[in-house]
């Protein structure tokens, strides 16, 4: 069965303390892995798409990486405004492009 598991469920960091969020997945045919940011009471906001192992994408303090089994979202020197829930999702080309979401990581950056 296709699965997407995110860890940790919640993470509290001091401002400037770098860390990584993990997304492990099992799908038969990866068409893409997606990272989203979601603020409370709002819809998810698209961050990155990764398509193949070894690929990396960067945006400001965020960098996403992909291997054959997992993806990491690295946060470098975070600021309080980076506090949000980060969602990972995968698109399975062998299951009619079904999109499967993880349950997210709640990130809180303390000033």
């Amino acid at each position: 069965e296709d699965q997407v598991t995110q860890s940790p469920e919640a993470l509290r960091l001091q401002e400037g303390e770098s860390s990584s969020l993990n997304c492990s997945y099992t799908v038969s045919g990866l068409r893409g892995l997606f990272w989203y940011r979601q603020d409370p009471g709002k819809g998810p906001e698209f961050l990155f798409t990764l398509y193949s192992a070894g690929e990396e994408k960067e945006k400001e303090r965020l960098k996403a990486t992909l291997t054959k089994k997992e993806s990491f979202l690295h946060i470098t020197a975070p600021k309080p405004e980076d506090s949000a829930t980060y969602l990972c999702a995968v698109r399975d080309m062998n299951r009619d492009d079904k999109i499967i979401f993880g349950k997210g990581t709640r990130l809180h950056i303390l000033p």
Partner: protein
Amino acid sequence: DVKVTQSSRYLVKRTGEKVFLECVQDMDHENMFWYRQDPGLGLRLIYFSYDVKMKEKGDIPEGYSVSREKKERFSLILESASTNQTSMYLCASIPPQGALTFGSGTRLTVV
């Protein structure tokens, strides 16, 4: 940029009412989706549509129906609202190759 617009940010309805949630996208995407999001359960797919007048059940379709009369518009209908349908509802659309773009969400409370 793709824009997905949900007609209401907040709704309060009474048990037994028929509820319509409207969603419009402006990028001519064929594929549109309705999710609900609840704490601890993540995003769950209710219904999706691959084209006008076409609809497919997602993981939790019970108690819901949908309508897609025009390509840009995808409506979610709660035939007889119940308190267990209190949730955040998210509409999304996606191009053939790419990521979901979400609307800002509708927080529905059924009393």
